[in-house]
Every structure is written in C-alpha cells, then in structure tokens.
C-alpha cells in the first residue's frame, strides 16, 4: 500500500536578488507503508528540502505530495521530524523535551503521559538521564532524545534529516543499528536523508540517489539484504557491490562540488 507519494514536486526558494532558486526539480517517489527509504546525495542538494515538504513545513511550488492519497497542506499528527541539529529546547530536561510533541498535540490523556515518556526513554536507552539538560549530554544522547521525542507522538511516518551527521563515527554505527531495532519493533514508514552511502545502504529497503542541483531522482536502488541486519553485513559482497554502485552514481556530482563548480 502506498503511504507517501511525491508527484513531480518542484521546490523554489526566493533569493535576495528577487529571483527564484530551484532546489528540487520534478521529484518522483512512492513509498510503501512500513518501508525504510533512504535518500542519499551530495550535501545541500535539496535532500532536507524534500523532508520539509513531506512534513508540510514548506509548500512545493509545483507538483503534489500525497499521504495515504490525501494532499499535504501542513504538518500533521501522522508525521514527525528528527533534526540534524537535534533541535532540543535547552531549558527543558530530557523528559520534558520528549514531552514536547505530546504537549503540543493535546490528544494524549494526562494519565498516560508519564508512562508514555518512560516507555520512550527506555526505548532509546536514556534511563537515568530523565532529569538531565541537553547540554549535559553527548551528541549521540541528544539525538536519542530527538528520536524519542518524535516517536512519542506515535507517528505513522518518521522523517529523519541526517540525524547522525553531528555524531561521532562510532556512535553513529551504534545508533543506526539501534534505529533498525526500533523500526522493526515500531513498524513506521521511514524517510531518512543522509550523505553517508554506507548508512543509506545499511538501513534501507530502497536507496534514492539524488542528482545535484536542482535535486531530482537519479536512480532508485532496491536493497535486498536480509533483515534483521547486524553491522557485519557491511562486509558482505552484496553490500559492497551496492556501495560501489551508488558511489559511481554520485562520484560525478561530488567531483563537480569539490571542483567548486555548481556547488549546491
């Protein structure tokens, strides 16, 4: 069953000189319910923009975004966003940050909130840190809070915008395998943006490879690796082959960026 559908989506941003900058062009994607789709591409080529459009935070200038067949007009309770910069409120404790979405959506009975929060604290492994403030946590732990905050409102769709980009490499590995564990448990549809090819292949049912400016779909690659996946899967020939293939697709784009031409 198709859960998210993007039809010929264009997104433009107004520029200081009065012109329009085309960030995403004729973007086409259909995501099945419960599917884990990663979007990989060179930095700043409209990857995040696609998530913001699906979340309803920005409106496409052309085309259509459909969730369960209905056009997206704004943020909704069926979707939650996890931010690269975590976006935690520094004056709130871990517990209270996780509660933000619950508070804002006002659809959870008071009596259940406490239980709900502790459930997600446990799920992301933050027991004992409930009363800590974000500045007392490491980057990895902060993003655990960000993930728990998104999961706590029980969304159907989890939108993740380079969630592990500000986390050190080792923690990143651990966090992505934990994310898979949570996903297998919670059965959400996930749209996950990253610039790490490794991460994209490891997590995904399908990898969407973007072309550079303006962002559009270059190729969609199914990943037929067995689940549940351990980190050891990254050494399997199929994984290596997929990584090689995606890198070949991206190399040209990245070369252009490195050369400073057409930088996104």
């Amino acid at each position, binding site marked *: 069953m198709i859960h998210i559908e993007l039809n010929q989506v264009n997104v433009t941003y107004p520029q200081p000189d009065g012109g329009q900058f085309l960030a995403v062009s004729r973007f086409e994607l259909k995501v099945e319910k419960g599917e884990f789709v990663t979007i990989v591409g060179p930095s700043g080529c409209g990857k995040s923009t696609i998530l913001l459009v699906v*979340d309803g935070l920005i409106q496409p200038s052309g085309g259509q975004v459909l969730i369960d067949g209905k056009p997206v007009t704004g*943020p909704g309770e069926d979707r939650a966003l996890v931010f690269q910069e975590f976006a935690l409120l*520094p*004056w709130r404790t871990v517990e209270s940050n996780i509660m*933000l979405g619950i508070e*804002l*959506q006002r659809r959870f009975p008071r009596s259940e909130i406490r239980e709900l929060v502790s459930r997600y604290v446990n799920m992301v492994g933050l027991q004992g840190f409930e009363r800590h403030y974000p*500045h007392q946590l490491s980057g990895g732990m902060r993003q655990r809070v960000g993930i728990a905050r998104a999961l706590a409102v029980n969304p159907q769709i989890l939108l993740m915008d380079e969630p592990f980009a500000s986390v050190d490499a080792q923690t990143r590995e651990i966090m992505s395998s934990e994310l898979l564990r949570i996903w297998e448990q919670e059965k959400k549809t996930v749209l996950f943006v990253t610039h790490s090819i490794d991460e994209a292949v490891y997590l995904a049912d399908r990898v969407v490879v973007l072309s550079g400016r303006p962002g559009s779909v270059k190729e969609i690659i199914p990943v037929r690796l067995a689940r549940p996946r351990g980190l050891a899967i990254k050494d399997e020939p199929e994984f290596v082959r997929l990584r090689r293939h995606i890198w070949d697709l991206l190399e040209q784009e990245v070369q252009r960026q490195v050369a400073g031409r057409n930088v996104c």
Partner: protein
Amino acid sequence: MLKQWQRLLISGTAILIFLIIWELAMPLGLVKIADISRPSLVAKAFLELAASGEVFQPLYISLKGFTIGFVIALVVGIPLGVALGRYRIFSLLIDPLWMALYTMPRLAMMPLLVVWFGVGFGATIAVVFLGAVFPIVVNTAVGIREVDPVWVRAVRSFGGSEWDIFRKVLLPGSVPPMMIGIRLGVGRGLLGMVVSEMFASTEGIGGQIGLYGMSFRTSELIALIAVVSLLGFVFVDIMRWVEDKVSKGRAEVQW
C-alpha cells in the same frame, strides 16, 4: 574556589578599611576638604532622620512610584520587545522613531513631563517608566531574535500554533537577554525616580536628597544616598534570585 564566608570576609574587610580611612581622614589631616563628613556622623544623621520619619515614609512614597512605573514598563516593554524581535514589519515601522527616542536625553524632558503629568507622583511614574522601558524592549527584542529558528521549526513540525511558538519557545528562549534588560531597567528606573523627585517634587527619598543637598547638610545627604544605593543593591539581588529561579539548571548553558 573560595567559600561563601571567605568571600564575605574579604569584601567585608575592604568595606571596613574604607570606613576606617574615611573616619580618620579629617582628624589625621589626610584631606583638606572641609565637608566629607564621617561614617559616625552619617550613622547618627541616619538614625535621627529615621526617628523623625524622614527616611521610611519618603521611601514608601518613592517605592510606590517606582513600582507603578516599573510594572507599566514591564507590561508595555515585553510585548513591544517581542513584536519588534519577531515581526520585521514592526521593527521597520518603529525603529527610526525608536532610535530617536533612545538616544534622546530623556531626563532633559523633565519640565515637559511635569507639565504633562503634574508635579510629584505622576512625573515620577513617567520618568521611571521612560528609564526602564528602553533596556527592557531592546533586550527582549535581542532575545527573541537570538532564538534558534530550529526550535521554532520543531514546534511547527508537531503542529504547534503561533501561540505555542510564543509560549514554548520565544518566551523561555529569550529569558536570559530579557532578564539582563529588566535588571538594567531597575537601575535606570531607580535613577529616574531619584532625579524626578529631586527636580519635580519634594516628596520621596529624592525630594529629601534635594532638600539636604541644597542646604549642604552633608551627613544627612550621604545617609540618604546610602539608602538609595542599598535599595539598588537589594533590587539587583532580587533580580539575580528571580533569574536563577526562571533559568534553573541552565545558568551555565550556552546556546
């Protein structure tokens, strides 16, 4: 790290040494100026003034004027600061006028204020308000502008309304600069209170200061000025306490 009592001891010693030098300066011939009074005389003057009702009654009147003026400054200043910080149209609209008012020597408007608000109480309220409102508005606006847009985005993403954004992000997020503005406002307001009472009224602690100042009764004058600075000290301390309360657990946070 020094302990609290050690810090108090060091500061206390400094004050004590200062008072001793001041007390002995005249008898020892350290100064030639006749009228610097002495701590013992100032203390005596204070007790006499207090006994004759020339400290606490005027202080009460002053504080009433200050409180009313300051509360109006908060009620007007915080929403105005929020609007200025949040909506570009507002800042474009108000900025030029605002800067003109900001740089204007407002105490020079005393005579006009007296005409508008009458001698005494009204003028004091107006001057306190004018002194306090500017730092409150400016720093609140700074606080709002410094709020990380990604926090706003997070609230939006969860379906939060403009009111939610204000309540859950803008207001708590701008507390540190806002509190600085309020603390500055207390200082400016107190200054305005004293000056207004000195020139536009004979009431209040400022009125007393004017009275004794003009007749060069140094001991009484210094005693009254000391009361005002003590008041400022207490206010700043209260503000610190409030700041700690509203920003509990994040005093050391940088965001």
